[in-house]
Every structure is written in structure tokens, then in C-alpha cells.
């Protein structure tokens, strides 16, 4: 079980209100991702749930029981830190055993669980190494192992992949997703990487300055961002936003078109521009077009290869059905 409810939870550091009162319910078994720009309060929110910070107001319910004043250890949650926070002087085995040892679990049971976790996480042959002798991905797994053995009602992850290099990140992302599929335990996952958010989440919570901008499934957010902020934040490469005359054409203050919803052509189209840098990945090509009539560089994605070069004049055509319109408040029309 792992239903977590925040009721009017707020947090102030001294005078600064980092998180204004906020309500949120996380259902049992859900994979929830908190995203938002740096400093928006993601970590703080997670730490409030974990009990590592005291709330300044509001209540936190875990499985319906008030846990607002419970100590971190009592909440039955497990956390995986950004730095992994492994105990550097203990072997992997001891690291994983630590929470069980603290709980006074009998030794045979500890060993059983360690074996199980190590097997699940492919760590069996590293059990006697120190964290310092492991690679980033392996450390990550140890941290997860340490969390799993406690059989928590929910896992909390604070940017667990941000220290890994790109290739490993993809691998670990899949591992965590698989883990969730297998365990079906509630997971709350903080990141500021939208790819992670999009690929892992059942539900994404977009935060800005401590406020919740939108809550929804990844595709909801992709297809129907509630406002300009979410539109710009979700999707990679980010959505092209147009204001001024171009937007006025569509009766909006701002319009947005994702790079994958713009066709590029050397001969005809709606907006004219000139190719700046272009990137050819084989599978896709990205063109950064400086539009003569447009304020900023427009990013265009095109499948396969297109024979356009730096400096070529091109025409862009948006996919009319996929244009997002926003009003003066930035809200979706």
C-alpha cells in the first residue's frame, strides 16, 4: 500500500515561501514524476514527504494515516538520493543490510533479502566491493537495493540519474521502469529532464516556483499543455513558440508548434527562413532555421535525411491540427 495525500502542505524557509499551500494525491502503485526548472521546489516537496523537512503548514497522509509529525524512519518510505548517499566504508552487502540491521531484523532474513535484491539488480558478484569500486550505474543499483529490502510502501527518487552519463542514463531509466512494473509500488521521482519524465511517468506533476502547473499523464501534457510554461517545458526538442503577427493569425497571443509538427521544404511553405546549423543523426535530422519573419530560431525535426545545407533558404509549414494556442495569461485556449 502506498497512497500519499498532501493537504495544504506549505513550506517556508525563514521568510521565503518556497512552497505555497498545495494539494496533491498520489495513488497506490502510481509512478509520479515531479518536473520543473531548477529551484522550483521539487526536492523540497520530496523531502517534505520523506519527513526530512518539517512542513510549515498542512498535513501529509500516508495510506490515510496522518504522518505529518512522524519521523522519516516511521513513514515506511524509502529514498534514493541524487548522490546515492551510499555508506562509503561499508561493502555493498553491508550497505544493503543497513536498514534491516537498524530495524533489528534477524540475520537469516537479512541475508535472504540481500540475495534476492542483489539478484534482481544484477549485483550478486559485487556484494563484497566498496561503493568506491563501483561504476555509477552499479552504485545507483546499490542505492535502489538498499531501498527495496525495506519493502517500503513508496519509493522516493531525487534526480537519481543526473550523475550518470547519457548512455547509462537510458539503461538505468529502463531498469527503474521495469522495477516499477514488477513491484507495482508507488514511486515518486524527481527530475528536470523531460525525457525521463515523459518515458517513466504514469502521472507528471509540473512545478513552477512551488506551484503545481499541471498534473496529468505524459501524453496529456504533450497534447494538451495547460499553459505556455508547460508547453515549453514538456517535449524535446522544446516546442517552438511564436508571438506577434504569426500568433495573431491564429487569433492567439502565443502559438506553439512542436519541431516534429513542422514540415520543411526547399520549395514551398508558409514561413520562409534560412537554415542555420543542421544536425543529421541518420535516423532524424534537425534544422535550426532562422526565420526572416520570425523572432527566434525555429527548430524543425525531419525524419530520415533531407538534402538541405547551411545557408539554404527553406519554407516551413506547421501541421495545422497540432498548433497550440494560448491567451494573454499564457493559458490554453
Amino acid at each position, binding site marked *: 500500500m502506498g497512497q500519499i495525500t498532501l493537504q495544504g502542505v506549505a513550506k517556508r524557509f525563514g521568510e521565503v515561501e518556497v512552497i505555497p499551500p498545495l494539494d496533491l494525491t498520489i495513488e497506490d502503485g502510481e509512478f509520479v514524476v515531479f518536473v520543473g526548472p531548477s529551484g522550483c521546489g521539487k526536492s523540497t516537496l520530496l523531502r517534505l514527504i*520523506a519527513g*526530512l523537512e518539517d512542513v510549515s503548514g498542512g498535513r501529509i497522509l500516508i495510506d490515510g494515516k496522518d504522518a505529518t509529525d512522524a*519521523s*522519516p*524512519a516511521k513513514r515506511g*518510505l*524509502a*529514498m534514493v*538520493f*541524487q*548522490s546515492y*548517499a*551510499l*555508506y*562509503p*566504508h*561499508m561493502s555493498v552487502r553491508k550497505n544493503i543490510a*543497513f*536498514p534491516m540491521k*537498524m*530495524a533489528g531484523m534477524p540475520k537469516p532474513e537479512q541475508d535472504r533479502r540481500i540475495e534476492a535484491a542483489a539478484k534482481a539488480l544484477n549485483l550478486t558478484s559485487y556484494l563484497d566491493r566498496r561503493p568506491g569500486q563501483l561504476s555509477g550505474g552499479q552504485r545507483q543499483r546499490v542505492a535502489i537495493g*538498499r531501498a527495496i529490502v*525495506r519493502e517500503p510502501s513508496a519509493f522516493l527518487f531525487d534526480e537519481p540519474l543526473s550523475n550518470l552519463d547519457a548512455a547509462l542514463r537510458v539503461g538505468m531509466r529502463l531498469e527503474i521502469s521495469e522495477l516499477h512494473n514488477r513491484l507495482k509500488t508507488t514511486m515518486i521521482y524527481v527530475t528536470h529532464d523531460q525525457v525521463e519524465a515523459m518515458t517513466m511517468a504514469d502521472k507528471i506533476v509540473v512545478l513552477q516556483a512551488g506551484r503545481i502547473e499541471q498534473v496529468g499523464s505524459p501524453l496529456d501534457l504533450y497534447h494538451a499543455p495547460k499553459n505556455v510554461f508547460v508547453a515549453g517545458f514538456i517535449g524535446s526538442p522544446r516546442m517552438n513558440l511564436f508571438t506577434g503577427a504569426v500568433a495573431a493569425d491564429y487569433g492567439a497571443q502565443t502559438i506553439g508548434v512542436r519541431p516534429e509538427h513542422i514540415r520543411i521544404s526547399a520549395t514551398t511553405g508558409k514561413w520562409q527562413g534560412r537554415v542555420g546549423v543542421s544536425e543529421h543523426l541518420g535516423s532524424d535530422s534537425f534544422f535550426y532555421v532562422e526565420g526572416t519573419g520570425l523572432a527566434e530560431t525555429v527548430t524543425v525535426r525531419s525524419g530520415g535525411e533531407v538534402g538541405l545545407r547551411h545557408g539554404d533558404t527553406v519554407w516551413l509549414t506547421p501541421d495545422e491540427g497540432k498548433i497550440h494556442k494560448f491567451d494573454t495569461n499564457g493559458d490554453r485556449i
Partner: protein
Amino acid sequence: MATRQTQGLARLMRAPAIILLFVWMIVPLCMTLYYSFLNYNMLNPGMTSWAGWFNYQYFYTDPAFLESIRNTLVLVLGVLFITVVGGTFIAMLIDKPIWGQGIVRILVISPFFVMPPVAALIWKNMIMHPSYGVLADVARFFGVQPVDWFAQYPLTSIILIVAWQWLPFATLILLTSLQSLDTEQMEAAEMDGAPAYSRFFYLVLPHMARAITVVILIQTIFLLGIYAEILVTTNGGPGTASTNLTFLIYRAARLNFDIGGAAAGGIIAVILANLVAIFLMRAVGRNLD
């Protein structure tokens, strides 16, 4: 980094320090070695003669010799124990969110700046003196017979004084180490359900192991050579209760003016110090990488 050119330069850059120290070590050492085989009393310079191993024999058959080694060890270990335990405790205290942290730190660090003879004089006359010392006043206030520190607990008193001088050093290093402890690790342990004392023993102490090693290494080097505090306070007594190896050599060199004997003692001390050094190197080398 690794071109032949830089390696050559590196050798050149290292040379002055190494040569200087080598000369500084080897010249006096050889002279001392030479003297240690002479019957050489400074007050009888005309009567110098070859002594063979006599000085060594004489030195280690000195009834005070074994006791001085014991005292040396007790002194070093005692001070290390107090400074490491006390330093850890004080470092943790200063690390807490307290008011006036800066001033507290200044106060705690101060003994480190006091010259050893001055420190000894202060403690001997102002603090531990059985009639005029503050401790005696305190004892009298409670209606207890004042303790005659240097007569009753000579070595303990010296350990206290020396520990007082080195406590700031240990505190500072341990404090820096403590502050470098990853807070996420502590939080992880908290999430794992570890109570405060478990966090201390399982996380804080192991984290500080390296710093503690350094404290032990540096202090041992200095503590082996302690003599000023002894000279000022107990003069090695009563009896030989507070005579350490250095002081024993001091006695031979500066009271008896027995250069040969002091040289032999010096060589013995060097050998012992190097045994300690090798032992430390083993321990520290492991911990310092």
C-alpha cells in the same frame, strides 16, 4: 604531465628540498653516531676517549630507561586518546547550530598558539599549583584537600597540559572532516531508521577515520619530542615518574653534559621513533590514499 621534459624538471624541483633535508638529517646523525661511541663529557673535553658500546649499555641499563619508554608511550597514547575523543566531542558541539559560533571557535583554538613552556608555566603556577592554583581554590571551596598534581599524578598532569595544547589542533581537523560529511548520507541513514548514536558509530566515525589518522600521525611526531612541559613542571619526577625518553636524553645532555651518553640515547630514540614511524606509515599509508 608526463612528458620527459616535465619529469626532468620535477626531479630538479624536488632536489633542493630533499637535499636540504637529507643534509640536515645526515650530518648531525653521523656526528651523533660518532659521539655515541665516545667517552665524551663536555665538562672534561680533554678526557675524550673511545668507548665502544659502553654508552649504549650504560643508557639502556639505566633504571630509568624502561620506565622512560613506558612513560613516553603513556604520554603519547594518553594525549592522543584525550585529544581524539575530546576533539571529536568538541567538534560535534561546535558544528551544532549555536549562537556565537565564531567566538566559541576562537576560544577553543587558542591554546594552540601558546608556546609550550608558557603553557607549562601557566598550568603549573596558575592552575595546578597546590596552594595558589585555581584548582586548589576550587578544591578548598568544596572543602576538599587540594590535589598536589605534580607530586601525586605527575604523568597525568603532564598529559593534561599537553592534551590541552593539542586539543585545538585535533578539534580543528576533526571539525573540518565533520563538516565535509555528506548530509545526504546522514539523511539516508535517518530514512533507514538509524538513531543518532547508530549514525555516529556507523557513519560519522568511519567518515572521520582519515582525519583521525592524520591527527594521530602529526601529533605523534610532535609528542615523541615533548620535553619542555616536563622540564618546567616536574623535572621528570618525582623519582622518574614523569621522565620520558626525550627528557632522559635531555638530562644526560644538559644536566650531566654527558655528550656520549646523550648521543647513544639519541640514537636509541631515533631507532624507536623510526619503528613508530614505520608502524604509522603502514597505518596511515593505507588511510591516506
